[in-house]
C-alpha cells in the first residue's frame, strides 16, 4: 500500500506541518514525518504548502438513489462525487425503492458502498415501514445488521404522527440510536411549492410556511426531552427553528441539528426565475432566515453541515416549476459554500469547519473511525483543501450522474486537492485516483 507524505500542510489552518499517512493511519506528524518517510520505499510526496488539512468530511445527509433510481445516481457515482468533495463518509437516506426499512436493504447499500470504495457508506434506516408513518420498521434488526445502523429517518417526509415519533425515540435508546427528523407538517404543506412570504405571494406559488417546520421541531424537542432520547433535526431552514433548538439545548434536551449549504447561501429570490433547479425541500427561505441559520451554525445551536445531496434526472428539472422535483446536488460544492458563507465571513475558523463537517457528524452517527483529530495513530482520513483557489461551477463537469446544481456558472472559492480514505488517496490533484 502506498504511503503519503503531505509536506507543509496547514492542519486546521494552522502552521505548516508534515504528515505521514501509512498503513491506514496517521503515522507521523511534524519533523518525524519526513524522517519516517525516508525509512520507507513506498512513499509518494504530496506538496501541500498553502493547503489546509482537515479530517475527512462526513456527510450525515445524502441521497445516493440506489436501489431504485439508478437513472439519477448510483452508490458508485454518488460516492465519487463525495470523494471529490472531500468526504470520507456519507449517510445515504432510506427513501430508495425499495425503502431501506429492513436489514436486507441496508446491507445491500452497505455492500454497494464497499464495492465502490470511494467513501465509507453508512446507510440510514427508515423509521417506519415503507416510510408510510404508520408502523415502526424493524429498527433493531437494522441496528444489529452488518450495516450497524444507528441513524433512522423517514427523510423526504416527516414522522408526523406524534405517537409514532414518541415510540421511535424511545425504542432506539436500546442501541444508542438517533431519530433523524425531516420536520415538515404535511397538512400545512399540502401542495406547497416554495417558502410562503412576499415572493410566493407575488409569484402565485403555493406557500410552504416556516411554521410547518417549526411546529414539528417544537413538538419533537419536547418529546425527546420527555423520553430522554436523542433527536437530530435535518435541514434547519428558518430563523424560528434556530430559536426553538437554541431553547431546547438550553434546557438540556439531547438534540442536534444540521444546516445545508444551500440554506446557508441561497434565498427565495432565486425562485423568481421559475427554474426548478432552485426547488428544494424545505424551500429556500428569506435573507433573514439565511442569516439566522449562519448565526446558529456559528454559535453551535446548529451542530453540523450536511448536504442533502439530492440528484434528479434532467427530465425532472427541465420543466415547469410545479412539475419539478425537490432537491439539489451538494457533495461537490459543499465545502466551497461553507468557505464562502462561514469562513470568509469570519463566522467559522477552519478548526470549526472540521468540527461541523467531520467530528460532530461522525459523533452523531456513532462512527469511531471518522471525524478524528489529525494526530498520530488516528485513522488516515484527511482532506487537503486549497482555500485560495477559485473555480466556476459547471454542471456537466460534476461526477454526479445528475446535473441539478444550483451553482452552475457561479465562481466559488476553494478546491479539494486530495482526499485520503483510511490512507488511500481517493482523490489526488483534484481528480479521482483510486477506489480500492
Amino acid at each position: 500500500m502506498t504511503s503519503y507524505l503531505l509536506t507543509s500542510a496547514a492542519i486546521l489552518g494552522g502552521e505548516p506541518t508534515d504528515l505521514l499517512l501509512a498503513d491506514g493511519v496517521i503515522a507521523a506528524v511534524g519533523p518525524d514525518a519526513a524522517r519516517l518517510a525516508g525509512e520507507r520505499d513506498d512513499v509518494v510526496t504530496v506538496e501541500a504548502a498553502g493547503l489546509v488539512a482537515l479530517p475527512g468530511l462526513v456527510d450525515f445527509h445524502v441521497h445516493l438513489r440506489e436501489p431504485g433510481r439508478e437513472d439519477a445516481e448510483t452508490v458508485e457515482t454518488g460516492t465519487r462525487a463525495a470523494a471529490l468533495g472531500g468526504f470520507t463518509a456519507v449517510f445515504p437516506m432510506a427513501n430508495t425503492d425499495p425503502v431501506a426499512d429492513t436489514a436486507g436493504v441496508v446491507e445491500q447499500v452497505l455492500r454497494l458502498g464497499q464495492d465502490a470504495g470511494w467513501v465509507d457508506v453508512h446507510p440510514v434506516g427508515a423509521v417506519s415501514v415503507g416510510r408510510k408513518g404508520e408502523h415502526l420498521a424493524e429498527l433493531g434488526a437494522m441496528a444489529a445488521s452488518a450495516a450497524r445502523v444507528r441513524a433512522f429517518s423517514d427523510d423526504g417526509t416527516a414522522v408526523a404522527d406524534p405517537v409514532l415519533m414518541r415510540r421511535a425515540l424511545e425504542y432506539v435508546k436500546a442501541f444508542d440510536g438517533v431519530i433523524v427528523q425531516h420536520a415538515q407538517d404535511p397538512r400545512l404543506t399540502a401542495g406547497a411549492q416554495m417558502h410562503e412570504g412576499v415572493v410566493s405571494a407575488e409569484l402565485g406559488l403555493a406557500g410552504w410556511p416556516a411554521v410547518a417546520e417549526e411546529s414539528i421541531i417544537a413538538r419533537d424537542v419536547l418529546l425527546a426531552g420527555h423520553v430522554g432520547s436523542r433527536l437530530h433535526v435535518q435541514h434547519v431552514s428558518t430563523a424560528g427553528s434556530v430559536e426553538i433548538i437554541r431553547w431546547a439545548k438550553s434546557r438540556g434536551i439531547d438534540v442536534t441539528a444540521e444546516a445545508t449549504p444551500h440554506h446557508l447561501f441561497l434565498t427565495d429570490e432565486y425562485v423568481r426565475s421559475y427554474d426548478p433547479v432552485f426547488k428544494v425541500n424545505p424551500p429556500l427561505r428569506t435573507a433573514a432566515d439565511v442569516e439566522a441559520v449562519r448565526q446558529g451554525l456559528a454559535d453551535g445551536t446548529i451542530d453540523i453541515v450536511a448536504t442533502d445531496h439530492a440528484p434528479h434526472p434532467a427530465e425532472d428539472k427541465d420543466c415547469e416549476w410545479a412539475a419539478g422535483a425537490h432537491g439539489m446536488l451538494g457533495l461537490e460544492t459543499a465545502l466551497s459554500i461553507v468557505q464562502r458563507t462561514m469562513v470568509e465571513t469570519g463566522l467559522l475558523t477552519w478548526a470549526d469547519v472540521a468540527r461541523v463537517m467531520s467530528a460532530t457528524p461522525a459523533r452523531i452517527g456513532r462512527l469511531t473511525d471518522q471525524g478524528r483529530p489529525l494526530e498520530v495513530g488516528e485513522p488516515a482520513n484527511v482532506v487537503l483543501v486549497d482555500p485560495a483557489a477559485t473555480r466556476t461551477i459547471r454542471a456537466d463537469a460534476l461526477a454526479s450522474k445528475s446535473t441539478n446544481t444550483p451553482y452552475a456558472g457561479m465562481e466559488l472559492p476553494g478546491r479539494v486537492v486530495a482526499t485520503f480514505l483510511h490512507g488511500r488517496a481517493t482523490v489526488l490533484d483534484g481528480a479521482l485516483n483510486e477506489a480500492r
Partner: protein
Amino acid sequence: MKHLLSAADLSHAEALAILDTAEAMAETQSRQMKKLPTLRGRSVVNLFFEDSTRTRISFEAAAKRLSADVINFSAKGSSVSKGESLKDTAQTLNAMGIDAVVIRHQASGAPHRLAETDWIDVPVINAGDGTHQHPTQALLDAFTMRRHLTGAMDGSPAATGADLAGRTVAIVGDILHSRVVRSNVDLLHTLGAEVVVVGPPTLIPVGAESWKARISYDLDRVIAEDRPDAVMMLRVQRERMSGAGGGYFPSPQEYTRAYGLDAARLAALPDHAIVMHPGPMNRGLEISAAAADSPRSTILAQVANGVYVRMAVLYLLLASDEGLDA
C-alpha cells in the same frame, strides 16, 4: 420586450402604448370590413393546458382579425394528456415553424419557462398561468376603465395617453388564487390608480402586504370610505368551501353576506362607479343579478375590449419593429 409574461414588466409608457394601440384597433372594428392584413402569413398557436373557452376565443378572434393563421392546441385529448412534457410540446411546435405562442397553463411560471429556455424561440404571450399572472386581462380591464372613468366617462374611446391617476379600484373576492388580481395590482399601480384588495383573510395570501395595494377585510367600509371608482368582483370557486382544514369560508351564504355585490352595496357605490367582472360569473355568490345586469356593469364591454387589447399585443409583438418597447 419580446414577450408578454407579466403586467409587472410593463412600464407606464409601454402600458399606454398597448392601450392606445388597442384604441386604434377598436376603431378599425367599427368598420364593416373588420379584417386587417397585418399578420397575413403568420401563424399563432393558442396553447391551452387549461380549459378557458372565453380567453381562447378572444385570442383567436384577435389573431384572425389581423389575418394570422390560428392553431388551437388544447391539452385535453392531445399528447399532453398522455404524459408529454411542456418541453416536448414546445419543441414540437417550434419544429413546425410557428410565429408566436399564446399559452394558458395551470402551473405558475410556465410561460416564463417557455420564454427563458431554449425549448422554443418565438414571442410568448401569457394567457394566464396558475395563480400568477394574466396580463391581457389586466390590460383589457385598464382599457375599460380608461373608457369609463376618464374623458367623457361613457365608454367612448379614451384620449391617447390617458392613464388612471387618481382613480380608486376595489378588487373583491378570492385574492389568494387569482392571477387576475396580481396582474391588475401591477398594472393599475403603474397607471397611477390606487388599489384596495378586499376579501376574507383566508383568501388573501401571506406576503400580500408587500403588494402595491391596500388590504381590507370589510367591503362595506371600502365602499363607504374609499368611494371606489370601479369595483371588480372576482369569481369565487365553490370548491374553495371544502378541502383541507374545512375550506376557506364557512358557507356560500356567509360569503355572499360579507363580500357579495348585492343590490344594497350596488346602491351604495358612487354614481359614476362601474362594476367589473372577469367572468365567468357565479350569479348569486359573488355578484347579484341586479349588479351584473345593471347599466353600470361593464362586463360585456370587457369582453369586447379584450379582443382589441389582444389585437394590440399581437400587433406590437409580431408586426412592429419596437415590440412592446415604448
